[in-house]
């Protein structure tokens, strides 16, 4: 049973780590230094 619950811990970690990696690619930030104000 320990392997099951330790595996669950690992799986949860993988989910948030994958989320972090995915969000890094989400609309890569643009440099708005020269952006015009509306």
């Amino acid at each position: 049973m320990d392997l099951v619950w330790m595996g669950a811990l690992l799986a949860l970690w993988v989910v948030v780590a994958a989320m972090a990696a995915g969000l890094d690619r989400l609309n890569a930030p643009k440099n708005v230094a020269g952006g015009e104000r509306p």
Partner: protein
Amino acid sequence: MTASAASLLALFLAALLLLAWPVGKFLAALCNERLPRWMQRIEAPLYKLAGIQPADSMHWLSYAFALLAFNAVGAIFLYALQRLQGSLPLNPAAMGAVSPDSAFNSAVSFVSNTDWQGYGGESTMSYLTQMLGFTVQNFFSAATGIAVAFVLIRGFARRGDGKSKGLVGNFWADLTRITLWLLVPLSFVLALFFVGQGVIQNFDAYKTVQTVEATASAQVIAMGPVASQEAIKMIGTNGGGFFNANSAHPYENPTALSNLLQMIAIFLIPAALCFAFGRVVGDRRQGWAVLAAMAVMFVAAVMVLMPAEQAGNPLLASLGADQGSSALQSGGNMEGKEVRFGIDASALFAAITTAASCGAVNAMHDSFTPLGGMVPMVLMQLGEVVFGGVGSGLYGMLIFAMLAVFIAGLMIGRTPEYLGKKIEVREMKLISIAILVTPVLVLAGTAVAVMAGAGKAGIANPGAHGFSEILYALSSAANNNGSAFAGLSANTPFYNGLLGLAMWLGRFAVIVPVLAIAGSLAAKQRLPVTGGTLPTHGPLFVSLLIGTVLLVGLLNYVPALALGPVVEHLVLWK
């Protein structure tokens, strides 16, 4: 509200402001990484030992991976400690290994700053597990939350140019400084104060005594190192009690004064972080505005909760029970409350512990009136932003502030900006994720629990109250509060797994997008204030912020609340 209730609330708020101001000043120095030289000298060997360069600022993704790795190691260590405690020292009550599912739940619970407890502390955990496991994680999980708040504040404060463009700070340095210079000193002082009030701190074996009733069976009185855990439990908005009864236990919370200090300790860092925020972004009014929004919602909640409990139970009134307040009794609904605290201190404690993501309790929320029980539930469901947890309350509220300026921008037709940083497509996508993670976990989790046989098996009371028990548990877990409505038998593989999932994702699946937002903001230049900039420090913005928090919360949860506490209230008062 009675005069004594109003006086207690006023005293609490005055003491809180007085203490939070200097702590906020120090937090700003921590966030700005401007520590006195003597502190740096003490830190230096620690960094050298760990091979860390504290001045090396990280990209948000590196920061996130460091944070996740640190917390994962903490969870695995905590799991192993619980499973092996039977073979380890400091176990005078000879506690055996914790079951695997309960160990999983508790490991996630304490790492995520939730401190949901499916177990009874004095009947399950050894002193070593309580100290080396739970108390240590109380420090680290609190430090993690504050570190994330620091990162978001830096995202706003940094100019977005030069070498530090897009960099948000060093996780290891933040963790070390927050723990070493903030949490440990505050907890040490508070623990000494608690000992002075009668909170126990020892390694004795449990004592067997003959009760005054002189019944045949003797009573076993649990001992342990309680005060040291109690202090960080409150200061770090953790909430996990040494004993099952938590702060209702006389060894955890012996006097009215200790009760007042516990309440102040819960709000101290969340309030101080608002002041720190204003200082670091260079406009103290911004911090006051966020604090004002939190305070208004908190006072409104207290003004519903206290009278609801003071009104008592109409069914008892119909039986002729005296529920009026007098010199001899608190009156009102005293079921599940300590006589020594009465209605006022119990109801105020309940509002504070659920407005902040603490979860310590000095009364059983399950026994509150339906309306009184709904207030703590709603405070959690608002996303733990009414002061909230240490760090998580501020970063949660700042997420709502960005949503508020976005909505205001839509209304007046301008690109939204907050503190000189434009809020664009990427930020809005991340804000949406950060806000929607917890409602999805709460509502989907509740739906699964009420449909599954294993979920329904845990309900103690049938009907609307039983639904409230489940809704409260998921709200508490996903929002990292940790208080329990009681009644629900949650120490089962089903609930340990489901609530563990909710706690982990409710914590880290929110932290990750918040860090991403911070990284994005840190890469942007600060725009100067112009005549077209929406002021974010005045009453108009405070109202807009409160409206945004309430709108999101109510849209998410009104249907679920209608099935639980609202139905129960209507049935009770029909």
